[in-house]
């Protein structure tokens, strides 16, 4: 919809949906398969099927690889560039983020963010047939939103991560710096989404609504960085999630205007 495409192509949409569901499910399963030892050490994740031993690791590995393969092949059949982007997302998530960096550096979340932004970029590329600046902004919107999500969890579950020896921003740089990073990334995510809305040319009314939501996120972020509290940080995480969902709806419906 970000392309304001007048043609609604159900087979392409269904194919893309299948490809996304398969590749994201596959990468998530592979992530849990690789991390099942550290998941078992953390209170938040110890009840996951692999960590609790309800599913054999070998079985999960096979299903994860199969779904990932189907997802990438499905996307490649739709459009080679879309398929390549889906493959990159999977590669960054499973290989770079999970296997290579997660246990070594707190900066692994950057690669997690890159992986997280790939599905929306793939959708845009499939819709317009090329990589354009609006696609890059959509990618950046998700890329900057992901630290808000992950870093908030790392603050709330700092003891868990420490127990599993997973490096986080909290353990490496302290809570103050982590909160500041959350604030800055929330603001950058909002700027990216407003840029997308302007670039697509959504109607004036929807632009007003996005302006209100962005102003809310901006005020909340700045207030939280000036007067940080644990409850407030978690509230910011919730607000940023509502913001991202709402801005997607605004771009979707505003595109009709």
């Amino acid at each position, binding site marked *: 919809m970000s392309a304001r495409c007048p043609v609604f192509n159900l087979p392409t949409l269904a194919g893309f949906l299948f490809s996304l569901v398969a590749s994201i499910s596959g990468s998530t399963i592979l992530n849990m398969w690789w991390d099942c030892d550290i998941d078992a050490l953390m209170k938040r994740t110890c009840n996951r099927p692999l960590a609790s031993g309800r599913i054999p690791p070998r079985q999960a590995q096979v299903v994860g690889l199969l779904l990932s393969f189907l997802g990438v092949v499905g996307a490649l059949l739709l459009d080679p560039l879309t398929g390549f982007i889906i493959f990159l997302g999977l590669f960054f998530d499973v290989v770079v983020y999970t296997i290579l960096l997660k246990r070594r550096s707190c900066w692994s979340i950057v690669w997690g963010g890159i992986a997280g932004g790939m599905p929306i970029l793939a959708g845009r590329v499939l819709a317009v047939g090329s990589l354009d600046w609006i696609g890059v902004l959509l990618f950046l919107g998700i890329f900057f939103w992901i630290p808000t999500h992950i870093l908030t969890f790392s603050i709330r579950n700092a003891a868990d991560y420490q127990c599993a020896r997973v490096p986080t921003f909290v353990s490496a740089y302290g809570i103050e710096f982590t909160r500041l990073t959350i604030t800055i990334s929330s603001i950058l995510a909002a700027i990216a989404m407003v840029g997308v809305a302007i670039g697509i040319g959504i109607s*004036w*009314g*929807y632009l*007003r*609504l996005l*302006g*209100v*939501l962005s*102003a*809310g996120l901006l005020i909340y972020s700045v207030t939280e960085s000036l007067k940080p509290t644990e*409850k407030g940080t978690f*509230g910011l995480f*919730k*607000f940023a999630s*509502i913001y991202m969902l709402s801005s997607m709806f605004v771009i979707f419906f505003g595109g009709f205007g």
Partner: protein
Amino acid sequence: MISTKLDRILFLGTGLLAAYQVTTGIDRLSLGPVLSFTIAFGMLLLTSLYFLIFGLDGFTSPVPGISSTVIPLAIGLGLILQFFPKYGSLYLVFTIIGLILVMITRSIQHQPLFHTISVTLVHGIAGFTICIIPAFIVILGRMQFWYIFVAIGGSLIGLAGLLFSISRIKPKIVPLRINLHLFPALLFSMTLCYVLGFHFG
């Protein structure tokens, strides 16, 4: 204090109605009123989201105080700019001074009387504007009867403010706990009235 499911549904409903109002409900107006109403309904939207996230515990923060001042002032300014544009600048000055006055006196903790006087004055004028102008405009025949709902919305926001004022003084006629549970319903009803008034009026 934990909010109930009904409270959350009412906050969500308030947020959706306010979002509708920002998006399409004020489209046919000129720039000045659109900006004022966008601030008012945008504030309503953000306030309902705030209470959805934090529940009724959100009352311990300054957010309700700020939004309960901004919303009536912005709606009042929008109405003046829409129907009596020649008084727009004067009302804009009142809005800015009023907002600053309420914020400053709020921060003076040891002199609550100043805050009470400024809140009463500013809210009183803004509330009077919201209640009287729509009724006057309907009587003049410039808007349809439904526009009277804007005045009802104004009365409801006044009622909400009154309930909280009563709950803060002694002896407590209405306990704060009951007020907190009335608040989501009042917020929703008020927003619904505004939407009905602006849409059909």
